[in-house]
């Protein structure tokens, strides 16, 4: 996820409440810039970005909560809810990616291992879903999974994929429910009140 956008044209000596609205408006735009990916269950990175952007908006509103009208409380609650749903989804995505890498590593032998090690050396921090050093550690383990353990990991992968599917459905329904209530507009309206 890219760094949060710098909010330009803020006056250091202006009222905090005025600047807070400008900052929150930018964070709101950032959040909704990822909304187009909500319908794509497998836009894993983009859904993760939506989660981070939601979190940034939430933290910003929390910082300045006392400068906003009371309606901010209910909005924060919804943002926290979305963030939690996307968080659970991300946790599953990470586990699924880890299992695929582990099983792939076992399938493909040394070449695969080398390419992962290369990624570990050159990857930009924070850009990969699985920490490359972690992957390297798991693949370096002297004993890989036995056939029985491997079968277990395959079963776990299927299990997690089913759970992930359910979680995605719950999140999407919630997202559309909020859309039906024009949640984005509610936030804009709240920010317009001084």
């Amino acid at each position: 996820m890219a760094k949060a956008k710098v909010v330009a044209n803020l006056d250091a000596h202006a009222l905090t409440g005025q600047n807070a609205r400008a900052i929150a408006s930018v964070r709101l735009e950032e959040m909704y810039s990822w909304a187009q990916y909500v319908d794509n269950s497998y836009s894993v990175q983009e859904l993760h970005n939506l989660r981070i952007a939601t979190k940034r908006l939430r933290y910003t509103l929390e910082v300045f909560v006392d400068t906003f009208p009371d309606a901010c409380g209910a909005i924060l609650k919804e943002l926290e809810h979305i963030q939690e749903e996307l968080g659970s989804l991300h946790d599953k995505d990470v586990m699924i990616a880890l299992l695929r890498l582990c099983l792939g590593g076992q399938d493909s032998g040394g070449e695969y291992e080398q390419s992962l090690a290369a990624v570990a050396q050159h990857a930009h921090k924070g850009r990969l879903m699985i920490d490359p050093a972690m992957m390297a550690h798991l693949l370096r383990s002297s004993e890989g999974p036995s056939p029985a353990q491997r079968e277990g990991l395959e079963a776990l992968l299927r299990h997690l994929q089913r759970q992930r599917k359910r979680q995605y459905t719950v999140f999407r329904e919630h997202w559309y429910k909020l859309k039906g209530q024009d949640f984005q507009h509610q936030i804009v309206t709240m920010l317009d009140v001084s």
Partner: protein
Amino acid sequence: MQGQNVPVCAAIDIGSNTLRLVVARCPCPDGVLDILETDEAIVRIGESVNATGAISSEKQAHALSVLQRFKALATKHSAQTILAIATEAIRKASNRDDFLTVIQQEAGIEVHCIDGDMEATLTFYGATYELSKSAQPPAKVSVMDMGGGSTELVIAKDMQISWHTSLPIGSGVIHDRYLTADPPTEADRASARIFLHTYLTGLQLQQFPPILFATGGSANTLLILAQRAFGLDTSHAILTHEDLVRCEGLLWALSAEEIAQRYQLDTKRARIITAGVLILLSLLETFDLKEVHISSYGIREGVALAYARNGAQWLAEARQQAHNVSQATSHVNTNVEIVTYHEEFITSGRRLFLTRAETMLGWRDVVLKHEDSEAVHKMRVASRRLRAVMDAYQSICQRRPFKAVYAQIKDIADALGIARDTDVMIDTLRQQLEQASASEQAGIRWLIDGLSEYRMSHQQLLEKRLLKLDKDALLRSLKACLAEEGEKHGKG
């Protein structure tokens, strides 16, 4: 009860919401506080102090009439001594000295205005009085005195205070600020909850004892409400999280007057306990507690006990105890992150940078101990909250120091992130283990072992990074971001 010749004392507590009296034999020959009379009146002095900074003439007159009534009760029981203390609202009232002089002249009562350390010490004496008599008191216990203007929080080990603080989140303050509708609205509740959640999670409390005692008028009234409304066993002074949620539902459904009529409560108190229930719920949820024990004894009984133990020296001894406690306890960051609309942007930024950094740094020692995996999570969240503030103020910051300190904080956050993500994976796998088939279990265990090994090796890296972290230098760098000389380049 025997002891007709034992001295009788009256102890008065002038709180932000309530004035309270206890008349007792001090000490009773069998060591038990022999209470002869109690009385109380809700005056809400804090309401006037919060609104104007001073105690209004109406509140002064009301308080004076209550104190004269208390004096008459003390005389009725032949009390030789009247001990009176005043807390938060009086402490901060601009006309405090005039008010105390009027009480001295009109009611003949000398009132001692005590500080937060004394308040915590005396409250602890009172609230744990019953507990201290038991054969095996718990090793660790916490006590909260939920007053109108502040909430005193005390943690004790082996019945000795090991830590305490005074939090500016009294039931009167929260009520006046957020819950003025009757009954309060959903939006009111959400705002108050968000404030309390943000405030309590901002405290650097790494561990909280599993047993919590609460005292104060609102806590006791909530117990009475739960007993009368839901038929709770009156021999157990305990409120579970569920009991409190039910009270909350009731208080949000009915007006204070209806609550008062139905359950024989004071109407003023019925209004304030809306805030009380939210404070208790927030505390239980923040510190992951299931229930709270309600103590009917509080600071006034603490004063009586201090007198029973030390006679005329009660105040000096209590002050010394409070001083010892103050020296011995670690201080936490209780700076309130209230940012008001009209505050200058750069001023709020300077404060927020430092309070958020201190909150993050407060977790470092716990992470280094590597005993509580939640500490990693909390420090990471604190680092993100700090970055959210820095992101907000970036355009008015000095570029060079901002870039350097931001990178430093991100570096720490990344290291914490890897540790946390690995912890989450291990936890997720352990949860899956419970419902997994035998073959699945074998695979999960293989992965847990590998991840656990990796987590251990990463801990060393994390510790190295945290040990290198120079707290003072970091705070200096953060201050430099919003330094005076940068203001002229403030825009853009």
